[in-house]
């Protein structure tokens, strides 16, 4: 029975080890912020952090996570300055439309800003191009990441 560290808590989950993390989060633990979009790591709607890096939960079997520390949107520390700045920027610029991809976008942006505090447009494009948005909010995502980086300066 895999043991997972999710949002700072250890969970024993009674699923087969080939079960992707996404479905453990959503259907076993009831953590619904992480979204299902494609199931083959093409769209990024399921982006979570493993040891601080953005990973796709939809094709990450829980049996391979081992001691990796997983955080989801629900587990963000409200006092964390990067998380706070990113979410505030998203609201300030009204990035969202349908909003379904945005939890993944926000998680990808937080991971980017932790690694690169002041990314260029090219660095943003490179980090965020794995995350699809059908509503086409990319212009605002790019602007919001700059906005958040500025607020953290």
């Amino acid at each position, binding site marked *: 029975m895999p043991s997972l560290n999710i949002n700072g808590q250890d969970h024993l989950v009674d699923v087969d080890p080939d*079960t992707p993390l996404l*479905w453990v989060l959503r259907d076993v633990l009831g953590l619904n912020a992480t*979204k299902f979009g494609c199931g083959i790591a*093409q769209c990024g709607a399921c982006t979570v952090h493993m040891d601080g890096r953005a990973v796709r939960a939809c094709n990450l079997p829980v049996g391979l996570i081992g001691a990796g520390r997983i955080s989801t949107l629900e587990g963000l520390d409200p006092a964390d300055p990067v998380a706070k700045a990113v979410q505030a920027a998203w609201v300030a610029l*009204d990035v969202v*439309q349908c909003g379904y991809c945005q939890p993944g976008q926000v998680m990808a942006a937080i991971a980017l800003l932790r690694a690169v505090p002041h990314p260029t447009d090219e660095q943003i494009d*490179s980090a965020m191009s794995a995350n699809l948005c059908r509503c086409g909010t990319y*212009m605002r995502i790019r602007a919001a990441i700059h906005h958040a980086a500025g607020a953290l300066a």
Partner: protein
Amino acid sequence: MTTPTPRQPLHQSPRQLPGRTPLQSPASRRQLMGAGGGLLLATFWPAPRGGRAQGEPRPEPGMLAGPARGVFAPNAYIRIATDNRITLILPNVEMGQGIYTASVMLIAEELGIDMAQVDIEAAPPGAGAEITGGSTSVMTEWLPLRQAGAAARSMLVQAAATRWRTRAEDCTTRSAMLIHVPTGRTLPFGAVAAQAATLPVPQKPALKDPATYTLLGHSQHRMDSALKVEGRAVFGMDIQVEGQKTGTVAACPVEGGTLADMNRAAALAVRGVRAVLVNPSNTAVCVVADHYWAAHKGLRALRLQWHPGPNAHVNTQTLYEQLHEGLHGPAIVASAKGDASAIIAHASATHTATHTATHTATYQQPLLAHAPMEPINCTAHVRPDGCDVWTGTQVADRAQATAAELTGLPKDRVAVHCQYIGGGFGRRLEHEYVTQCVEFARQVPYPLKIIWSREEDLTRDRYRPAYVDQMTAALDDRGFITALTHRIVGPAVVARWDPPELTKDGYDEDLSVATLVTPYTYPAYRLEFARREAPGIVTAWWRGVGGTRGLFVVEGFIDELAHRAGADPVAYRRAMLAQNPRALAVLDKAAQAAGWGTPLPPGRARGVAVQFAFGSYMASIAEVEMPEPDAVMIHRVTAVVDCGRVLNPDQVVSQIEGGLIFGFSAALYNEITLEGGRVQQNNFNTWRVMRMNETPRKIDVLLMPSTEDPGGIGEVGTAAAAPVLANAMAAAQGRRYRTLPLLSARNGANGTEQG
């Protein structure tokens, strides 16, 4: 170690609908398409029974609340409780277009409340708009929602004036407070709500002078931003009902085929699998399990075998051949002005060695999938005494009627709980997935959530049709149109989706958008339609509907004529728009803002498109670079919009930005192809969606000030995308792009599509 516990409480257990009589409002598609609708969808309702209990905590801003409570319920949209809690019941569904925010603005402006003071509820079937689509929400709600706010305000003011023994004229409202202006006395709305409820509802309340608006016309933040950014918005996909099981579905990959064989035992042997269900028509199978992954593994283990049925021979080539064949032979005449055909025949016969006086071009566009980010899903709980459905739908009334029919329950025992929609784009104007879910859920005692894999979502979509169009113009000696004929070949989507709206001649009026209905006028004109239904495919609406379809053809053709005349594409259009000041104004402003005519860096080119659709005007200019014939970089897009009075300016900008990108994705890359009746694109690795590194560096959206009634906006950007891009690419490459997708092999560098 801790026991796994859901962070969020389970979704509210099924509840009954408050006792409302279904609204008899046959909102015709013509009204949907923007010819107005007035009070059609805004009949006054009795207060609901039941609803939320006193003392229940306030939902977070933007979170959809359960049935509203309130002693003061002057109409279908507003409930005010004695504790001053205000609930607005919103008739249209939110799928990203910002309609919840705009709807609240319309009511709040007249009522005199702050946006932050409002709880929102999605209207249940029968009490909301029958349909959210066609960019019609603001057009149809503009008047009734303001009237609803104004009527409620008038009654509250009257109640307060009576309480204060003063004249209503001396009272005003602000931030949900009644204010006696001469003395500065105040009362919260809730304090007079009970009295207000005893007063007659004014049927024609006075509306505010737009010059005094404090909300409308001023950008307001979306009500759902924080919820969505924090991952707390509840989409259909996120529904968790007590006792629910999760199923995933495979339907026969060929339309019309049926189940031949499956290994049921293998699926049931998968850990967590609870049931294998087959629908009554034997066309789809659902594996039910404790969680999605077990269901998914169970579905694979079934090793499904299908009888492909009568459509096993359908492929893309035969589809296009059938459409091209429709360019010849009989057709329905949708519109005729003068004798365009005779003028063209005469011009054609009198050409000289140096001057041909006619021009013909054939355009082709493909089947398209919707691929919203939220794959299709629905949850249903069917019981002997009732049925609950939780889903994202643009057609809640239809979903309710279908569930009632399938279960044999009266409509008032069928509740459809509308959730936030993770992308509509026309996909959720279909409700066959509700039918499917209820058919499966009837077979089990527990609530059943069905989730389609992305593969199921793409291969069992209902698709935007493929079309072939041919236009022929007779031209004067300056190259301007003296007569124009246009034949459209393709399906009539409305014939299935809303049969009474097919004209008696068999015409689908959606095809008139951006073709017959255009900013241009022609001395002679003929529009024909040769109906060809696509075999083996169910066709459906897609963002921009007729506007997206028609504008690619018409604006491409106009651009060809400008090029042929040796004229500047903006100047050529200006000359054709002399009688249309709103179109001319957006074009002039776009040309100025984009620096039309100013020198560009080497390798870059600009293209332009002008449109009138969904009640709004727009001119757009794209600046592109094509380092290779099959590669394009979009550097900049400028769009100038006249959508009448602008309600929430920043959200209009947002819809144009996003609508353009949605349209660019399809225009550049997307085409559904069929082989042996099966759709060949099945996930985002074969259905390419524009990514951030491919989006324009810059999109400038400028809004024209206007006091005209508001037009639609959700589909305006998408309609412009293909023509403005194709025209810029044509300028860059010196050849026309008449086939979508633009980077298709059929648009090869040798210009085989040249006509």
